[in-house]
């Protein structure tokens, strides 16, 4: 593994009366797809939200490319892009305006703005609907807008939280291809999912969470071990 782009150390978090994270640690490197796996409620989304500074940890620490999420949150956010299952976009803005807005807020310089937005539209094959209002786009097209706004500032760390859960087969495949492409460009890709089949195909390394604890971590092959697939390995770990 390359040097850790994201380093999570003994993270703890309680939301309301529910202790969601119980001292988890993990590391994800640049140029790899890192799978954060586990059933619903395992703590995957909370972990991602802490990594991208939306939530503050109760204990433990997170470093992104050497920046601490507690003390340097804005530096962290400049280097992180997040794609979630909730493909919320501004319906009365066009696809291009949605992306431009996030590029501007992420600090893309005026001289770079058009070039960056055009590049991202081109890369995600969005040129044909770039000037259409978001309210008239299909789910797949909206998901592309969501990806575009997350990557327009060219972040070194990309996090995908159940990105395909609301999408059809074709749109899901495009997302998977995009993750592979990003890894090949040297990005650190963190893929949070409960669909283990997807994880097995895409991830270089995985960490399995269960009830706020890490129950397994390592390369995909290591975690699968002697089992037929990752799902069997996962079920055995969870049932222990």
């Amino acid at each position: 593994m390359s040097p850790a782009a994201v380093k999570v150390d003994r993270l703890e978090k309680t939301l309301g009366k529910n202790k969601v994270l119980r001292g988890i640690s993990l590391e994800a490197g640049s140029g790899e797809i890192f799978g954060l796996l586990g059933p619903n409620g395992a703590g995957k989304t909370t972990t991602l939200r802490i990594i991208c500074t939306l939530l503050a940890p109760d204990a433990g620490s997170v470093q992104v490319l050497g920046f601490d999420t507690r003390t340097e949150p804005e530096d962290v956010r400049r280097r992180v892009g997040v794609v979630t299952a909730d493909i919320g976009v501004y319906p009365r803005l066009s696809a291009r305006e949605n992306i431009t807005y996030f590029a501007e807020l992420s600090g893309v310089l005026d001289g770079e703005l058009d070039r960056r937005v055009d590049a991202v539209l081109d890369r995600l094959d969005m040129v044909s609907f770039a000037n259409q209002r978001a309210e008239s786009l299909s789910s797949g097209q909206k998901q592309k807008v969501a990806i575009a706004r997350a990557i327009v500032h060219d972040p070194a760390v990309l996090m995908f939280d159940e990105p395909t859960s609301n999408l059809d087969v074709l749109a899901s495949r495009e997302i998977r291809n995009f993750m592979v492409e990003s890894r090949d460009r040297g990005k650190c890709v963190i893929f949070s999912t409960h669909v283990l089949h997807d994880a097995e195909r895409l991830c270089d390394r995985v960490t399995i969470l269960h009830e706020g604890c890490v129950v397994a971590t390592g390369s995909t092959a290591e975690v699968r071990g002697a089992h037929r697939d990752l799902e069997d390995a996962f079920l055995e770990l969870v049932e222990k």
Partner: protein
Amino acid sequence: MKTLAIVFRKEIREILRDRRTLFAIGLAALATPTVLVVISQVSTKTATQTYTVGYTGEIPTGLGILLSATALKLEPVADPATAAKQQVDIGIAFEPAQIDEWYDPTRQSAQIADTRLQTVLGQYDAAKAAAALQQRGIDPGLLNPLPVKLHPLSSPVKAAGNAFLSFFLPYILITMVLTGGLSAALDASAGERERKTLESLLLTPTPRSRILLGKILAVSVISLVSAIAAIGSMLLALSQIPLLGTHVSLSPLAAIVMVWLAILLAGTFSSVTLALGTLAKNFRQGQAYSTPLYFITIFPASIILFIPDFNPNLAYYLIPILNAVLVLRDAIVRNSVAWPALGITSASLIATGLICWFAALRLFTRETLLIKS
């Protein structure tokens, strides 16, 4: 400042593409002139309308002509008391030495007819008494030993117009500043949660205080535009429609005070509505949270209606909204500004706006905002 401008520009662009907000502004511009036309027509109709007086007995000489000239139509009835309940506006019985009158005070037409009748009878009595004195060679001026000669310092008609404006204009200003920006405020706060764009927005490196300030500025501008559209159309309508026998107009001083107060109110209301919108999970819940604001804001404006001569001490000018109503009323009625009152009012509204902005920021930065989304 740049990120503030980015948020502001995006919010304005979205608002201007939102039919709800445009509809609210358009309605504000059209509603006030419509209301004024209705008021003008009703008041003209009331002034010129003929009311019916049911009577029994013999009409005293000359009184019939006076009543007819005052748009009171005499109609013989069998029983004036019964007729006054529904058939006619008032009933009277001419007796040899007195007049009996029956009227229902709950009927507005009866009240107006009664006032007219009392005026006519007063004039009739005075004329009869003067004629009787003159017949006896006595100066009728004896009946009015201390005649009053009025020297109004300003036009009574204009004063009546100003009194109307002093209630109507603060009411329109406050209502429109609140309602004009409400939809935009809820869309910019609760709408972000409902559309699920909030998380992405908070993931940008832009400080949340600047995001919020950009939203407040955008909502304030829309509130101002809405209020100015409503008041502009109202003043335009007043310049065309005679009301209370005159064309009511706003003095330049009152106009400046009004714009200044509108700016302060817009900032305060925007912060309040954004804070309430941030508490809400969706647009509809935000509307429910905002409903009490209507009552809170309309109540101070109503004080001027019920207590027109309400002249409180300076401490009252610390109360937000009420202070704006009082300052604006003074500027309209007296065409002058009491600077200490305006100073306290400005400080109070700015402080209220800052407190609300701080509350909105606290709400906007709490973790539960995301967890409950």
